[in-house]
C-alpha cells in the first residue's frame, strides 16, 4: 500500500483541521515562553493552505507538499513559517514526481524535512524546539519503514515518537528561538513548535491509517 496525491491532500486537510482546533492551546503555550502568536501563525498558514487546495488540485504527492511549503512560507511568518516551509519544501524535493509514496519514501521525506529545519534554524537536540519532536519522529519512521511497515503504521509510530519528543521539551531550558531569552524560566513549559509537529503527524497518521 502507498499514498497518492489524494491521500496526501486529505492528510494535509486533516492537519489544518487539527491545528485550527488547537489554535488557542498553541497560543497559550507560546504566551508562556514566547510571544503568543504560534497558534495564530500556524492557523493562518493552514487556512491559507486550505484556500490554495480549493484553487488547485496538485497531481502528485510532491506537488501537494510543494503547495503546502510555498503557502506556509508566504503566510505564516515568524520563526515557524520558514522552518515548516523548508521542511515541506525539502520533503517535496525528495519525493520528486512519484505518483505515490510508500513507507520508505515517507521516512525519507521526513528525514529531508528535518535536515532542512536543522540547516535553517541551527538548533540541536534538547534546545527545546520543534527539532525535539521531529528527530525522534524521523528515527521511528525510518525504523518502521526498515521493518517493512505500511505508510499508516509508519506515520503512527512517527506521531507517537513526536508526541513523546514534544513532551520531553517540558523540563528543558531553551537555547534557540524566543523562549531562549527566558533562560532558566523557560523550563517547565512545553515548546509550542514541538507540539505543532506532534499534532500534525498525528493528524497525518490518522488519515493514512484510515485508508
Amino acid at each position, binding site marked *: 500500500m502507498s499514498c497518492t496525491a489524494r491521500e496526501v491532500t486529505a492528510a494535509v486537510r486533516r492537519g489544518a483541521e487539527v491545528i485550527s482546533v488547537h489554535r488557542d492551546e498553541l*497560543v497559550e503555550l507560546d*504566551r508562556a515562553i*514566547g*510571544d*503568543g*502568536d504560534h497558534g*495564530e*501563525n500556524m492557523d*493562518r498558514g493552514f487556512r491559507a493552505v486550505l484556500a490554495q487546495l480549493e484553487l488547485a488540485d496538485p497531481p502528485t504527492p510532491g506537488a501537494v507538499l510543494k503547495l503546502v511549503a510555498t503557502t506556509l*512560507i*508566504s*503566510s*505564516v*511568518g*515568524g*520563526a*515557524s*513559517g*520558514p*522552518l515548516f516551509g523548508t521542511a515541506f519544501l525539502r520533503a517535496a524535493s525528495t519525493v520528486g514526481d512519484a505518483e505515490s509514496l510508500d513507507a520508505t519514501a515517507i521516512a525519507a521525506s521526513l528525514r529531508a524535512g528535518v535536515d532542512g529545519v536543522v540547516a*535553517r*534554524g541551527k538548533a540541536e537536540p534538547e534546545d527545546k524546539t520543534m527539532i525535539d519532536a521531529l528527530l525522534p519522529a524521523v528515527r521511528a519512521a525510518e525504523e518502521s519503514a526498515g521493518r517493512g511497515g505500511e505508510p499508516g503504521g509508519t506515520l503512527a509510530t512517527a506521531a507517537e515518537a513526536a508526541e513523546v519528543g514534544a513532551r520531553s521539551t517540558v523540563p528543558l*531550558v531553551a*537555547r*534557540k*528561538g*524566543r523562549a*531562549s*531569552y*527566558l*533562560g532558566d*524560566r523557560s523550563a517547565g513549559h512545553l515548546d509550542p513548535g514541538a507540539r505543532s509537529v506532534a499534532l500534525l503527524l498525528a493528524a497525518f497518521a490518522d488519515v493514512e491509517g484510515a485508508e
Partner: protein
Amino acid sequence: MKKIINAPADVVTDALRGMAAAHPDRLRIHLDPDFVVRTDAPVSDKVAVVSGGGSGHEPLHVGFVGSGMLDAAVPGAVFTSPTPDAVQAAIREVDGGAGTLLVVKNYTGDVLNFETAAELAAGEGIGVRTVVVQDDVAVQDSTNTAGRRGVGGTVLLEKIVGAAAERGHDLASCHEIAERVSAGVRSMGMALTAPTVPHVGEPSFDLADYEMEIGVGIHAEPGRERVELESADRIVQRLLEPILADLPFREGDEVLLFTNSMGATPPTELYLAHGVAERFLAERGVRVTRRLVGPYITSLEMQGMSFTLLKLDDELRQLWDAPVSTPALTW
C-alpha cells in the same frame, strides 16, 4: 481585551489603510502582500533602505518611511515577522538600481524570512546587503540564546543609514555605516504592564501591581528579572548600568541618548526618566550631545521604557542631523 478595532485578523491591513489616508503625500501602501513605500519610490541611483518586522511596534517601521529614512517597510502580523514574498515585493518596488540594504532585527523569524527574501531578490539581479541589529544587553548569554534582540538601536540605525543613502552613499558604504552603528549601539528596557496581542485577547504576561519586569523585549517576552517597583532614579540606574558595562562608553565619549516609551508611558514620565539619565551619564563623564525622546519603538499599549546609547563620531552625528521627513520623525 480593550481595543479600537474591527476583526482582530484585519488589524494590520485596516491600520495601513488609515495610514495611507493620513499621509497621502508621503506614503503609498500595497496590500496583499502588505508593505508601505515612500511616494517617490523608486528613487533612481539611490540605495534603497528596507526594513520590516512584526507589527505592534509602531511607529517602527512603517512610520519611518519617507525621505531620509526608509524607502519601504514591511509589516507582519502583530509580533510576527513578515513573509519573504512580501519583503521581496517591497524590494522590487523601491530598488532604484543602486541596490537595497535590508535592516533586520535579530529574531529567528525575522532573520529567516528576510534571509529568504534577500536570496529571492538577489536571484532577480538586485544587489542586496543585510544588517542585523542586535543591541539588547538584557540578553546576556548570546551563545545559549537566539542571540541579542534588535530593539531601540534599530530606530537610530534606520535614521542614520537612511540619511547616508539619501546623500548618495553606495551600497557598500551604507552597509559599512550600518555596521558601525550596530557595533556602537546598546539598549535595555523595562515594563510596568503587559500588552495584549489582538488575536490573543489577553495580556502577554501577568505582572502583579507591585512588580515590574526588567530587561523586557519589545514583544513582551518576559525579561531578565522581575522585581518590585522602584523609583525612577533606581530604574534608570538598572537600565543604564548594564548598557555602560557592556559597551565601554568612556569618559568624554560623545553619545546619542534615546529615551523610548514602550507605548503607554506618558511624556511626563519619559521626560522625567530622560532627565535622570542625563544626570546619571553626566556624572560618569559620558557626553550626551544628541537626544531622542518619545514612543518610537513600542510594544502595543505596554507601559514601560527603554534607553539606547549610541556612540557618535563626526560622520554619524552629521547623518543624524541630516533632514528627515517621515510620519513619525521629521526635521
